[in-house]
């Protein structure tokens, strides 16, 4: 199943994300973001972290989840490639994430994402599938 697809946005970048379940949708959203940021084929699973995020509803939870990962990328210099949602509801989640420290010799950064926006943000369930739309500020 397709994890995500890019949508054309004039100034920034948007993605439609797909999942069979909410946890899968959230995991695929994180994958999509790092797939835009870097070439993940060269990223190894050397580092494992457990993170917890909350929000006032599932939409904000998605923004906060991606923003937290973006922060770890930008400030802790991390690249992640696998994301397991251990436990979640509409307002909080716990996840185990795998990746490694950015190594400029091996890794290729493709795009810098400034922020995860709320513009046109949607999470919907249709025919037993979930889909979400997120626009990033580049």
């Amino acid at each position, binding site marked *: 199943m397709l994890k995500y697809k*890019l949508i*054309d*946005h*004039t*100034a*920034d*970048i948007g993605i439609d994300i797909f999942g069979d379940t909410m946890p899968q949708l959230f995991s695929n959203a994180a994958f999509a973001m790092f797939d835009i940021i870097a070439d993940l084929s060269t990223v190894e699973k050397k580092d494992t972290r457990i993170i917890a995020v909350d929000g*006032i509803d599932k*939409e*904000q939870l998605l923004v906060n989840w991606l*923003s937290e990962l973006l*922060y770890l990328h*930008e*400030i802790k*210099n991390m690249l992640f490639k696998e994301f397991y949602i251990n436990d979640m509801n509409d307002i909080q989640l716990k996840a185990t994430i795998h990746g490694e420290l950015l190594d400029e010799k091996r890794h290729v*950064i*493709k*795009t*810098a994402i*400034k*922020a995860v*926006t*709320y*513009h*046109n*943000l949607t999470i919907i369930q249709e025919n037993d599938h979930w889909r979400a739309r997120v*626009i990033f*500020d*580049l």
Partner: protein
Amino acid sequence: MNERNYKIQKIDDYRWRIPREGKMRVAGIVYADESMMKEIQKDESLQQVINVAYLPGIVGHSLGMPDIHWGYGFPIGGVAAFDMEEGVVSPGGVGYDINCGVRLLSTGLCRMEISGKLESIVDSLFVNIPSGVGSHRKDLKLSQQEVKNVLKNGAQWAVSHGYGSKEDLEHIEEKGCIFGADPELVSSRAIERGLAQLGTLGSGNHFVEVGYVSEIFDEEIARTLGLEKDGITIVVHTGSRGLGYQVCDDFIKVMIRASGKYNIELPDRQLCCAPLNSPEGRDYLAAMACAANYAFANRQMITHWVRESFERALHVGPKESRISPVYDVCHNIAKFEDHLVNGQKKRLCVHRKGATRAFPPNHPDTPAAYKAVGQPVLIPGDMGRCSYVLVGTEKAYSDTFGSTCHGAGRVMSRNQATKMAKGRSIAQELKEKGILVRADSRATLEEELPEAYKDVTEVVDIVQHAGISKKVAQLKPLCVIKG
């Protein structure tokens, strides 16, 4: 993207009205010509002009400048002013890159003098000014307390720490420091992001460009601004880096709660806001001022390294290079200003999201040196074409809350641009046109392909014809460093 049918009325050759309907509190006005207006309707930017018109306390019109394009929340190229009692402030009306802006430097050098030395100038700039994703300066270690001083004092902090001179400050919007900054309202995470990135350019559309004055439209004003034909100029485009993004992010969370608390109905969550006279609104403005000051300090420090780079590359001293700021403008900001509303002077909070202040001659905030000609407006174009210097006008002051366009505006998504650039060497193409480029990433160069932007000349001609700015000079690029 689905094309929509907007109800648009032509006002004149350069203005279009989106009539007030539904929950709009005011009408929208977009500055564009007929062919541009056709393009504009293809994305969601007009819906965003409409959405902004829903916000409480909006005064006059929800405005779109000719470089308008689809943003998040406000359109990019959006201007809206809010009443102090009933109005709101919205972080989405300022953007993540708070006080992203442009600084123009003039020099005592002319095109002939540096023609054989461009290679060493561009290399020197590229080495001295860190650029690219997550770029940071290894030689600059600031304590948390020192960063707070940056947030409070902006470019003044930079000058007092040896980056440039006091005279530089006279040539910066707000003299490089927005009043009311309170570093205690900036989160530790924002400061953490700011610590490492001060003095860096960043990535995407940020750049330092060396160029020359290729055409002068108004001799007298150009002379007042210190610009002459074939004179070398430098344009710096950057903002508040991760610190600004984090301030915006933090306050969007606050504003989502506040919008509920104050019963503000939102057409788009990104437009979340709070009344100007609420604690949430005041706190945001005080934190926003911090990020704006960080950006002023950033451009001031980069100016210092531009000076050093030129002196090293050309083996000249400051007296020969004479690099000094013409002006420095914000294009993502919310500010308190006095404007005439129905003939009465009123204090308003003007949001400019991808728009530039364009104050007229003799306005108190127009710098002393430019009182007679108006505040300089700096409009960069894409890497391959040109940029413009304009000045603000009375008409801008009366019609657009003293605002004008900010750049060329994208017409192509980054994705489309990358596809378009496939199999081409953008650096080589530019070199053949006489423009040297150094970029941290090849991807950036492709995304920033000249064709990905509107022709800035068309944008600038519209603000000139509409009378909201006056063209002074055109600048053509010689070399560019990109993130």
